[in-house]
């Protein structure tokens, strides 16, 4: 059964909301039920932007993710806020270039990826979010890479497609 409840979190401007959007588009193309809920308003002013994304072949009740199967964090406040939201045996993906503290949980899978460093090697720090997203789908298998690339092609900016594609594939590769 396909079922993932994911939170993406970081600073505004890191592409947090678009990671969620591309994943939601890909899920929709795979005929899963999907929802995408962004944080808005005062909670965004405290340093974190986040979105809750659900992909499932069951009906979606609440679109708010309170027990996440996976969390991707791109800054320290997000780790503080969402570390405890991951369910036991769930997945936590951390950009280790931006979050230096250790994760306290020992009942979940933690993957630390130096996404800023890898992104720079590929040509732009702006694609660090896509590296983490690539790692997420590789570990969860919630959608195939082809579906995500299709979503990127249809809904992303054409001039960044090749770079984003390289980032997604690299992200998948480093956790394989």
């Amino acid at each position, binding site marked *: 059964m396909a079922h993932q409840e994911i939170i993406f979190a970081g600073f505004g401007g890191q592409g947090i909301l678009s990671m969620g959007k591309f994943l939601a588009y890909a899920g929709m193309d795979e005929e899963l039920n999907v929802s995408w809920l962004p944080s808005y308003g005062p909670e965004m002013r405290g340093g974190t932007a986040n979105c809750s994304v659900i992909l499932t072949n069951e009906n979606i009740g609440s679109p*708010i993710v309170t027990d996440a199967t996976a969390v991707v964090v791109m800054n320290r406040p997000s780790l503080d806020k969402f570390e405890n939201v991951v369910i036991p045996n769930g997945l936590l993906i951390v950009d280790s270039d931006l979050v230096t503290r250790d994760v306290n949980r020992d009942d979940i899978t933690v993957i630390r990826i130096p996404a800023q460093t890898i992104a720079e090697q590929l040509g732009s720090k702006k694609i660090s979010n896509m590296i983490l997203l690539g790692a997420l789908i590789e570990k969860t298998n919630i959608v195939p890479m082809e579906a995500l690339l299709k979503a990127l092609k249809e809904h992303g900016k054409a001039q960044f497609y090749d770079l984003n594609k390289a980032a997604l594939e690299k992200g998948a590769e480093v956790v394989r």
Partner: protein
Amino acid sequence: MPDKVLMKGNEAIGEAAIHAGCQCFFGYPITPQTEVAAYMSRRMPKIGRVFLQAESEIAAINMVYGAAGSGVRAMTSSSSPGISLKQEGISYIAGAELPCVIVNIVRGGPGLGGIQPAQSDYFQATKGGGHGDYRLVVLAPSSVQEMVDLVQDAFDIADKYRNPVMVMGDGMLGQMMEPVEFKERKPAQLPSKDEWKADGLKGRKEHHVINSLYLKPEELENQNLKMQKKYAKIKNNEVRYEMYNCEKDVDFVLVAYGTISRICKNAIKLLAEEGINVGLIRPITLWPFPEKAFEEVIDKTKYGFMSVELSCGQMVEDVKLASNGRKPVYFYGRTGGMVPSPNEIADAVKRNIGGAK
């Protein structure tokens, strides 16, 4: 099958209105509904229709009054404080018996309140926020797809009864994205507007006059009685609700609409794992309130009903009227933009069942 697209609730409202033939949109920005107006400002001029950002909410609703009086489909949208400002206009539109659609993407109150999801405008919407004996038909979607469907239905219901219709959501429904499809709809059979619309003489001898002023008490009473007949017809024809998990006997029935009804469904799943069987009545029309849904479960629910709201307890009064003393009615709510988790709702159910036992 038409293609599914992933859309934000607020943008889906705009697109649905365009599909419904909305000719004029008048709005004023306020979080969390600004994307409705932003979407309309992009789309409406491209298809030769009217988008106008008014100088205030009061101006916007009076522009709707004028446009509706000329016989075209018109809409405005706002959020709670802005809807309060519109109340005078809404009462006039109801009094003049004009069709229009008003969207309220509710935020926490009172006063300027906050911008997070809330349902504390239930009284205002269903009991008449403006003055006089009038009613709005109030539709409460719980998903982006339902927003699309109900906005289009709202225009039909408005035209059918010459009455303003409100579509009520909240920040969560407005901001979230879900897949939607714009289904082919059969055009509804609706009464002609030729008898009353004020669109110029067109060869007639007498002007059509749009008005809500009746200085003779006999005339005003007659107008009110005529409107009451219309409301009775609406109560008869337009009630909508969803029954969830109510097929068999249940321990308890939750009553919830919009955003919180979705979280109730998660809570019901959690409770089922503990062997507690809970159903849900989800009102889709808040007015007319779906009293008949209660008849379906009044004998099936062991411990009664619990109204679950993002308010301090407003719909619970209608739940009590519908239960009419036959079964206990409890209330659970969070307010100010706080949204309870499924576990909090499940705990409230267990507390009340425990008390009932």
